[in-house]
């Protein structure tokens, strides 16, 4: 390592770097404002204390959230800066860029089964485990308690600017949470949750409703819940409802509103909505043996159908299909019931064609099947459902989840091998994630 400067016998004025000076072209003899004298034998050092405030702020903007919270005790001014909306927004942009080079995955689970307590833990505790995608190492584990419990029906949205929506269709609990800052906000229940109260215990056992909702950002944040009209959510006050209903939560108004124009195709309950490229996507139930993809424009709040789906996918049983987001593009995959080979296609941003990005052949895997029994159930019924890609790794391996699985696996399509990434019972959601400071919406 080179030493910064050299000590010379003669003392020379040392230019102190001061606040941004206008460039002095045209005046080659311009002198810096305050030269510092260097004493004999003293190494010249630029004191960080001479860094201007806005540069110090740029350094803090690159701190992880936990370290930033410690900085709140620095001084009143820094506390107010860190808590300001503009700092939060700039931090978010930087975090997004950082995530592109250091991708992370968040696994959300109900409770931490390793902690044995004298009494059973209420289901109002949710664990957030953060992993480094490339190395698989656990970066953090945060357990948060939600004042209202979830009656064991816990649904977690995808990550939106570092935030999640956690709700229960059964207990009417509805929250937005930022696991990095531990901030949470309880929201009023949707009409769906209120109307569902009339469902009996037996009803809940048989029920196949669309419980997942989407958490997105247009100019403001929104929750979008599209579901089928059925006897459970029938509202005596509005008898002529369409085939589907859609509720949107407006954070500013702190209330839900109903969209008037909703799709006339029933939505397939077993598919989590995918958010990509300014839209939210759902699968429909088959109509005349064909599936459609309903797309919702987040800004315009209007629905449309995707003009083109791969014919092989459109003609399939929706149980053999999966839809997800990879690198902000919509992906659809189908598992062939005979060969159990799964092909993944990604929609181009022009929405008029698809490109194949991966083929998954779990049965041909060199890794022992029983080794991964706990991650992926290998019963016939579960083999039918395709795996859900969670993220693409740098070396072209793909992180896989499964509808009924407990864990995550990394699949290498070149060598057709599997590697364990994470195994823990009862994970509710496994998604790509980056942390943010956002705590006021």
């Amino acid at each position, binding site marked *: 390592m080179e030493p910064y*400067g050299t000590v010379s016998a003669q003392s020379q004025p040392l*230019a102190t770097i001061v606040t*941004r000076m206008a460039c002095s072209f045209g005046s080659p003899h311009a002198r810096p404002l305050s030269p510092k004298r260097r004493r004999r034998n003293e190494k010249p050092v*630029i004191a960080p*204390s001479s860094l201007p405030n806005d*540069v110090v702020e740029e*350094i803090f*903007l690159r701190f992880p959230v936990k370290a930033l919270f410690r900085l709140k005790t620095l001084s*009143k001014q820094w506390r107010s800066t860190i808590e300001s909306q503009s700092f939060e927004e700039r931090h978010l942009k930087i975090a997004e860029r950082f995530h592109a080079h250091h991708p992370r995955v968040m696994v959300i689970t109900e409770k931490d089964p390793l902690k044995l307590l004298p009494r059973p833990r209420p289901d109002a505790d949710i664990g957030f485990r953060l992993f480094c995608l490339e190395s698989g190492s656990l970066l953090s584990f945060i357990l948060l308690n939600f004042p209202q419990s979830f009656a064991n029906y816990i649904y977690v949205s995808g990550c939106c600017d570092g935030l999640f929506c956690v709700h229960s269709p059964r207990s009417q609990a509805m929250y937005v949470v930022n696991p990095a800052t531990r901030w949470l906000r309880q929201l009023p229940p949707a009409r769906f949750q209120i109307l569902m109260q009339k469902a009996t215990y037996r009803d809940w056992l048989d029920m196949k409703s669309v419980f997942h909702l989407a958490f997105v950002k247009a100019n403001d944040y929104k929750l979008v819940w599209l579901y089928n009209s059925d006897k459970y959510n029938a509202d005596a006050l509005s008898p002529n409802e369409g085939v589907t209903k859609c509720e949107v939560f407006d954070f500013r108004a702190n209330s839900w509103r109903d969209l008037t124009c909703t799709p006339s195709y029933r939505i397939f309950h077993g598919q989590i909505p995918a958010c990509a490229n300014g839209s939210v996507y759902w699968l429909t139930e088959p109509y005349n043996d064909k599936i459609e993809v309903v797309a919702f424009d987040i800004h315009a709040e209007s629905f449309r159908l995707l003009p083109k789906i791969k014919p092989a996918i459109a003609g399939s049983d929706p149980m053999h299909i999966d839809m997800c987001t990879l690198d902000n593009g919509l992906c659809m995959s189908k598992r062939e019931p005979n060969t159990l080979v799964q092909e993944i296609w990604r929609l181009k941003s022009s929405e008029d064609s698809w490109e194949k990005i991966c083929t998954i052949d779990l049965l041909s895997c060199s890794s022992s099947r029983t080794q991964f029994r706990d991650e992926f159930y290998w019963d016939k019924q579960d083999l039918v459902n395709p795996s859900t890609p969670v993220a693409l790794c740098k070396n072209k391996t793909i992180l896989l989840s499964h509808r009924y699985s407990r864990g995550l696996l990394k699949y290498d399509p070149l060598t057709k091998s599997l590697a364990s990434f994470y195994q823990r019972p009862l994970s509710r959601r496994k998604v790509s994630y980056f942390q943010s400071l956002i705590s006021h919406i």
Partner: protein
Amino acid sequence: MSSKMIVLMSSDGQSFEVEEAVAIQSQTIAHMVEDDCVADGIPLANVESKILVKVIEYCKKYHVDEANPISEEDLNKWDEKFMDLEQSTIFELILAANYLNIKSLFDLTCQTVADMIKGKTPEEIRSTFNIENDFTPEEEEAVRKENQWAFE
């Protein structure tokens, strides 16, 4: 094919000849080139030669050569080696990148410093940046308690 060269002059009087295409990664220099005032060379009163050498090294590496593309992974490795410097040098690089308006270098240097100091206690950070603590002890304790989890 000869490329256009410009001369950069450090605050301590050293001159460096650099390809214009490499130098204009600095928005500051790019504007001067546009305004056509580079004929006699560009004096950089805020940048010492020792730092300017590093800046030029960075800009040369990041000047995209279609014939020899570098993988992102290799660039990241190079960044790591490049930033293996003393803290005070990195601070000077931050200021130079800020003054010369080289976004990617500014990003890299700020991120490096952030990574170096993010584990420090608030007291240590206060003394590093000469920040005055205007909390009363009670107020400071209250803020700490409010965010106790961050200190564990």
